[in-house]
């Protein structure tokens, strides 16, 4: 297996509803990523594109083919990845495998979504498609409802009184918003308080409005190349050194594992093993905080904190810059935004810039190893580990 480097990134602002089409958004991110490498679109040998709900947002399926054509990467093989909110992480993982195998030397990967453009009602319906359509959706299951149930279960299982858990969850959102202020691409660039969170509209108990990430529009793109090509392009390559992916059954089938998601633990182990590292080696992490409670659940299964203890870690500042493991200093899905098909590529872009020391006010000084964790629905998980290559 060859080493694979990230050598370019592009990232549109993540926003409320935009008037740009998905192809326009992705092309902007893709051209920025390619420009950064000094290569041309025609040099890209394949496109791996995460896009989840284009069929419903714009009546546009098969976007990958038109996206490749739009940027002038004529006739290259283009493949769309649909793994709910983890779509573009799956795309990065596959792109890695194709370059690592030696089949391609230079590929374009990324994702795009216009979730905000759908409006809350249709977005809530289509996001509910990331649950079991026959055995669980008939009960009116929504995506926030799934994590709301996990929050109650978490409280019970780990004996954290709900009131205390709610305060810990609020702190997750407060931290993400504080970091979002210094991310020029973020959808929300304003601080919030615990009181703001705890006085918010109850979306689905116990999750209030500011426990939930927003619906967002946006795109992100990356150029992945072989180690040899990377040497021609940059002195500061970031290598992907660990990949993991796992799946699981419908929520009710995961029963006694809950609120842990077993798939996450399988995926993380695979990635850690391939990279030859453990959780304590990670300097900076972007994890899937679609809901405040999701951050606690993820941080524990990734091995950063004991089960039932992640809330205390957030309260004690262990997840801030300078703490044990800085988490979501981009603002995370909560403040940066969550255009689902683009989220994984956006997380990877953040880690790339962190490892290159390019994040300004939110820079984790001296970061050498970074990890992304992306969750799709209740079943798809992808873990990616990146290391500074110089």
């Amino acid at each position, binding site marked *: 297996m060859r080493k694979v480097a990230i050598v370019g990134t592009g990232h549109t602002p993540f926003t409320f509803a935009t008037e740009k089409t998905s192809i326009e958004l992705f092309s902007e991110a893709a051209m920025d990523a390619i420009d950064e490498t000094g290569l041309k679109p025609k040099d890209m040998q394949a496109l791996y594109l995460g896009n989840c709900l284009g069929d419903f947002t714009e009546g546009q399926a098969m976007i990958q083919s038109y996206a490749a054509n739009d940027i002038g990467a004529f006739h290259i093989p283009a493949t769309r990845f649909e793994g709910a909110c983890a779509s573009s992480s799956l795309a990065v993982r596959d792109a890695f495998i194709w370059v690592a195998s030696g089949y391609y030397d230079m590929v374009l990967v990324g994702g795009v979504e216009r979730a905000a453009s759908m409006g*809350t*009602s*249709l977005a*809530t*319906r289509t996001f*509910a*498609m990331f649950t079991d*359509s*026959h*055995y*669980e*959706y*008939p*009960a*009116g*299951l*929504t995506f*926030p*409802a799934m994590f*709301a*149930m*996990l929050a*109650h*279960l978490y*409280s*019970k299982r780990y004996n954290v009184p*709900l009131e205390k858990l709610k305060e810990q969850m609020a702190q997750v959102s407060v931290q993400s918003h504080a970091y979002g202020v210094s991310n020029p691409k973020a959808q929300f660039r304003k601080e919030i308080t615990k009181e703001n969170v705890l006085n918010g*509209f*109850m*979306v*689905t*108990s*116990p*999750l209030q409005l500011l426990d939930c990430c927003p619906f967002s529009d946006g795109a992100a793109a990356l150029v992945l190349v072989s180690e040899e090509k990377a040497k021609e392009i940059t002195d500061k390559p970031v290598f992907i050194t660990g990949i993991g992916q796992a799946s699981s*059954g419908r*929520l*009710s*089938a995961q*029963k006694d594992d*809950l609120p842990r998601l077993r798939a996450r633990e399988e995926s993380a182990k695979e990635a850690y093993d391939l990279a030859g590292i453990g959780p304590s080696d990670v300097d900076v992490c972007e994890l899937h905080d679609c809901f405040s409670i999701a951050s606690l659940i993820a941080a524990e299964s990734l091995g950063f904190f004991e089960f039932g203890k992640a809330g205390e870690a957030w309260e004690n500042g262990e997840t801030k810059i300078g703490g044990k493991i800085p988490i979501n200093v981009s603002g995370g899905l909560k403040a940066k935004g969550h255009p689902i098909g683009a989220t994984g590529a956006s997380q990877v872009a953040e880690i790339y810039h962190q490892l290159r020391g390019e994040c300004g006010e939110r820079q984790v000084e001296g970061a050498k190893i970074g990890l992304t964790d992306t969750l799709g629905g209740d079943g798809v998980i992808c873990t990616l580990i990146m290391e500074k290559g110089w």
Partner: protein
Amino acid sequence: MEYKLTFKDYSKALTKGKLLGLKCKGCGNITVPPKMTCQECGGTDLDIVEVKKQGKIVTFTNVNVAPEGRQNEVPYIIALVKLEEGPWIMGNLIDIDPATATMDLIDKEVSIGFKVFPGDKFSPGDQARPVFSFL
């Protein structure tokens, strides 16, 4: 390999007051709702069995924001119930004002009935779902 217990047959049985599951001849565990294989061991030698329509609430949420087409249903409670035989199933808790739902619901014993979701433009036809009432 033919599917032993399809969604259609499981759903139809539920509307006739029967909750069906699959008992694995290999490991003895019961899978509900049905799948091609045993949820515990992946075994394929399965018998259709009727399970008790009784269990305990393991978690819940009171939903105030509904998907498109279901706004008239809010507020409603979704619960996961652990059946006496072990499997968990998802449905709606009725017989309670959703606004009064608290953590005290967890571990409460419930019986299982059904209600039909008529489907929407994305879902083909009637889909029976479990509803839970306090014992």
